[in-house]
């Protein structure tokens, strides 16, 4: 394993040597951070009843599990599948499609709870008053059109580079 150095942040083991001024900034930031963390803890203890802590902890753990255990692996799987398709489809086209899917997915993540809450009811006609489902479909349509147009323009303008990229891949 020692032979492989992945291209990722913070190679383990060997921190780069830091100068004295950098060290001072680091100490200042860590001190500031600890003070703010302490304030946060005090506010939490003072303002939030202890009976709420298990629920808060559950949300913290749930957030990590949902992101690191479910969302990120799904994203990895999808991008892997797209990369495999790269044998036949120009990579730039895949990247454009992938980008559109991500934009649509993030918008869905924010809008879907609105649709659910609207279904449950708000007791307030001015809260969540729009047709969010239709809005989402509209966004998907705009994304589809823009993606098709971008791919079209790309294929028309850069045919030579596509073949080069495909050969090298």
């Amino acid at each position, binding site marked *: *394993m020692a*032979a*492989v*150095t992945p291209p*990722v*942040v*913070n*190679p*383990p083991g060997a*921190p780069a040597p830091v100068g004295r001024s*950098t060290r001072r900034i*680091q*100490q200042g*930031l860590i001190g*500031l*951070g*600890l003070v*703010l963390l*302490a304030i*946060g803890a005090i506010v*939490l203890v003072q303002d*939030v009843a202890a009976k*709420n802590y298990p*629920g*808060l902890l559950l*949300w*913290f753990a749930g*957030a*990590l599990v949902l992101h690191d255990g479910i969302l*990120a692996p799904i*994203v*990895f799987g999808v*991008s*892997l599948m797209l*990369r*495999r398709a*790269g044998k036949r489809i120009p990579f*730039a086209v895949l*990247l*454009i499609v*992938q*980008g559109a899917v991500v*934009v649509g997915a*993030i*918008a869905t993540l*924010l809008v879907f*709870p*609105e649709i659910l*809450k609207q279904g449950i009811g708000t*007791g*307030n006609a*001015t*809260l*969540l*008053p*729009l047709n969010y489902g239709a*809005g989402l479909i*509209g*966004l998907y349509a705009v994304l589809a059109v823009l993606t098709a147009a971008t791919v079209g323009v790309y294929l028309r303008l850069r045919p030579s580079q596509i073949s080069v*990229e495909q050969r090298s891949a």
Partner: protein
Amino acid sequence: MPDVQQLMGEARRALAAPSRTPRTAVVVGRLLAIAFLLCFGTGLFSHYLQDPLPWMRFPTRPTFLYQWTQGIHITAGILCFPLLFAKLYAVFPELFQTPAIRSFPHFLERASIALFVAASLVQIVTGMLNTYQWYALFPFPFRQTHYALSFVIIGSLAIHIALKLPIISAHWTKRASATTVSAETGDAVSPAAASPAAAGVTGRIFAWIDRTPAAPPRASRRAFLTTVGVASAALVVTTAGQSFRVLDPTNIFAPRKAGIGPNGLPVNRTAAAAKVTETAVAPDWTLTVTNGETSRSFSRAALAALPQHQVDLPIACVEGWSQTASWRGPRLSDLLDTVGADTDARIRLTSLEQKSSYAVTEMGPEYARDALTLVALELAGQPLDIDHGYPARMIAPGRPGVMQTKWLSTLEVI
């Protein structure tokens, strides 16, 4: 079976991607830090407007001040979704670093990152749900938790920046980043690079991943950053219209829409929710103004008989939506003069509303004596709708909507 260490190493290598570099982490991290700090600053301002320390005085101009700060708070909060996801995507392989814990400081660092990530995710998700008023989903009080977590997040951010400072400075500019990368020879490893083959099912999976074509690095990085930019722009265009009128035509996703509501204005808390549907329309309703021993009561007709003023002021909710409207009624200053209140007096406002921490609030003299501060009887040329605070409500420049007390009952000099 490969041991866990090797499995983690394989996973980390398999997850490597051209868009997962220190440079992309720095580029996205900078933007995310700006968004976090904007949220923190505007959030603190909003907090102290609602819970001021005794010595605090606030500016009443520009009248759109709170409309802007809270609009920025919510819009920056929405932007944290694409930015945080992008940041986590860029550094995700680090989750599988081996050995998982090298030393006690390393354990502390990883624990602080876990706290940072968890608090950030919980903060933006509950913040979003709060704007949909979907409180039943989380088993803790929103406002207090949101406030406490803001310090946890900014504290963790400071520590995170401190620990990553060498990497951040090495990749701050494109040129410096390129120099650093070429100095670190192993940095251009493709997924197809040789590695000791793991045995069994996992080994076959990693081998299969290795055979997958690598993404072209430059195009991938560009596509990654472009995607983050487009997602951010799309969210601003489709939601920020609730706070900034210029984007109202494209507001299709915000939980509020300008112009939708009684008197053409959205409502935060309805009369039914505040349980004032009977008390607010009681024929014997009066507004009582008290200064020590001196006390005067005004019926709605008596308030309407005082000199009337018309002001254009925004109603700006802590949930981010806002809308400027035309209000009409007597000046608060004139009412306070009828009981001989000092010009630097603080006022306690009491509402008819029930079960609300905002039923009794205080107002500093900078607002109480401002010429634009009215006890509003009319909105948009019509009597106040009961959901907007009939028979009378407060409207002052630059204050959060929850402090613009509806269904006024008493005003006391304190």
